[in-house]
């Protein structure tokens, strides 16, 4: 009997190949599944079925066309092609595809709503930057200002050099 499921075993073998415990391919909720509770994974989450509860991922959450989620979603990147009844917080990017329907507030730093998509709710842009990002940004800003200052000094001295000399009688 088990030989009939060779392709499935190959899929499992793929999972075995992944590094143990913490990392891995993530969670997949099948089309005929009803899930209740808090679904949390450090890796990607793909939902094809029904979820009644919170979905939290440290990476990506993908809500496919057949999926329906009643509850908040939190992730770095969220792709919605199905139905979401609840708030979405996507720290990096939120994309609502033409088949996607979102009923709830969204908060993200990069929002894409494609033509045909439905979004009913309040949208907030995440402006907060990570402290490290802030530092890097400030350093870059400083560098740029110093460079521009140097440039302006140089150009001023160059201008002085190229100034026409007039002889005064």
């Amino acid at each position, binding site marked *: 009997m088990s030989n009939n499921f060779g392709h*499935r*075993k190959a899929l499992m*073998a793929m*999972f*075995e190949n992944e590094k143990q415990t913490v990392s891995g391919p993530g*969670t997949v909720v*099948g*089309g005929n*599944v009803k899930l209740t509770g808090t679904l*949390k994974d450090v890796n990607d989450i793909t939902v094809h079925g029904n979820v009644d509860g919170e979905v939290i991922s440290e990476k990506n959450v993908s809500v496919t066309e057949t999926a329906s989620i009643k509850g908040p979603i939190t992730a770095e990147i969220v792709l919605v092609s199905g139905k979401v009844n609840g708030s979405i917080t996507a720290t990096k990017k939120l994309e609502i595809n033409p088949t996607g329907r979102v009923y709830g507030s969204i908060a993200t730093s990069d929002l894409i709503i494609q033509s045909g998509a439905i979004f009913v709710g309040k949208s907030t842009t995440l402006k907060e930057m990570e402290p490290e990002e802030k530092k890097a940004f400030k350093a870059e800003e400083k560098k740029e200002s110093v460079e521009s200052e140097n440039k302006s000094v140089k150009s001023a001295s160059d201008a002085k050099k190229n100034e026409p000399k007039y002889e005064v009688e």
Partner: protein
Amino acid sequence: MYYYINEQPKNRAVAKTQEYIRDLLGLTGISGEVVTVSPARTTEELVEMGLSKKHNTIVAIGSDRHINKVATFLINRKCVLGIIPINSSPLIHQLIGASEIKEAVDILKFRKLKEINMGLIEPNKYFLTQAEIQSNKSFETTVTVIEADFDSYQVNTTATEMIISKNNYLFINDKYKGPNVLKKSWAWLTGKHLPDIESSVLRGKKIKIETSVQMPVIMDGEIVAKTPIVTTLQLKVLKIITKPVRIEEEKKKG
């Protein structure tokens, strides 16, 4: 010194392979005490004998079932498990990084250790590869996945097969769901890819599986439990000898 435990040979071919391995071990310079499981001496007794003789490496030579049995008795012990697979599943070969017997013997020589996880079907059935629940008819199932004390979810679905891996991944599939034969054939003819949206992959530290009808849980062709079951992830409970990176690199180079 290495202590080798042969599985009781099922046929002449296996007995011959065991003899070949013995010769190979001698040639490789890692020969040691070789014992064979028999009705008079069980796997457990032989493992205990090996441990009492202070062997630091016990090598299981045989099928998945034999390897799994030896592994079970070495859990949380200082002793290391070596593996020479005979007629084993690809999962075992993948685990040690060898596709053939000679390669498995070479790997033993280098003795590169790796701590690995194992699955446990409570109360005491450990597994090194995977456990399966399979049926020709769809059955209803309720799965409770527990990641932490306040972090859990419940899944209700139908299934024809459920596979639990040693890292406590649960794969659920219902072969009667999804696109029908006509759709599949059409997709095949037109070269379209039909995504598999019916299969689920769940993961948790603890997974409780309940089914509408009592189902057997099969491990290496043997029924080890019946539903409902609770499986838990056992983190780094076993040390095994695996392929060193150097050999892999040399193999890649050609």
